[in-house]
């Protein structure tokens, strides 16, 4: 295999990673969606307390986090791609561990601290997605700061 074909092979694998990403300006749009959703939840709680509106805003937070997560950096080079992959791996492992251990901690907290007989309860899809996305976004930012 000559140098050109090695370069071509590496370039193609990097290009594949970039295909599902949004342009950098979408990061601000994602943050905007998160802020609007959070404000909606707070205002809804203080006034009409509509369940449908609350649910929509909660899924708005997930949408915003997803948009932030898949938006490119200003310079999306191989270091950033590498850090991004590290953050997805960390988020996946941490997310699964938290999801698995959360019911146990809830059970212990309820039975030991509050002296109530509780049954094991899993966490919902919103919480799982929120945990995965927020860990990925914050760990990616942490890794970027560590590499400055």
């Amino acid at each position, binding site marked *: 295999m000559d140098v050109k074909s090695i*370069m071509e092979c590496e370039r193609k694998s990097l290009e594949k990673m970039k295909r599902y990403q949004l342009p950098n300006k979408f990061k601000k749009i994602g943050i905007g969606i998160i802020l609007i959703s959070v404000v909606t939840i707070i205002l809804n709680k203080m006034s009409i307390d509509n369940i449908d509106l609350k649910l929509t805003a909660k899924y708005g937070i997930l949408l915003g986090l997803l948009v932030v997560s898949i938006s490119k950096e*200003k*310079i999306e080079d*191989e*270091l*950033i791609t590498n850090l991004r992959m590290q953050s997805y791996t960390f988020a996946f492992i941490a997310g699964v561990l938290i999801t698995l251990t959360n019911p146990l901690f809830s059970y212990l907290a309820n039975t030991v601290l509050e002296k109530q007989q509780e049954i094991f309860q899993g966490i919902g899809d919103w919480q799982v997605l929120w945990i995965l996305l927020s860990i990925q976004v914050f760990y990616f930012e942490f890794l970027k700061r560590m*590499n*400055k």
Partner: protein
Amino acid sequence: MKNRLKIERAILDLTQEELANKIGVSRQTISSIEKNRYVPSTVLSLRLSDLFGKPVNDFFELDENEIANA
């Protein structure tokens, strides 16, 4: 992996930013390579080799441990 990127950059009298622009990466990437926190890909190493006019082995070198494990 050890590298002489900082020295090669100094020979060409380039800042991290200028070197980054020439090879199409961020300044952060150059800084991370110089501090041995990131090992660049073959593509990036060959781009640096082109710019410095030297083979990759002249500015990237395996550690003793890495040689022993080979």
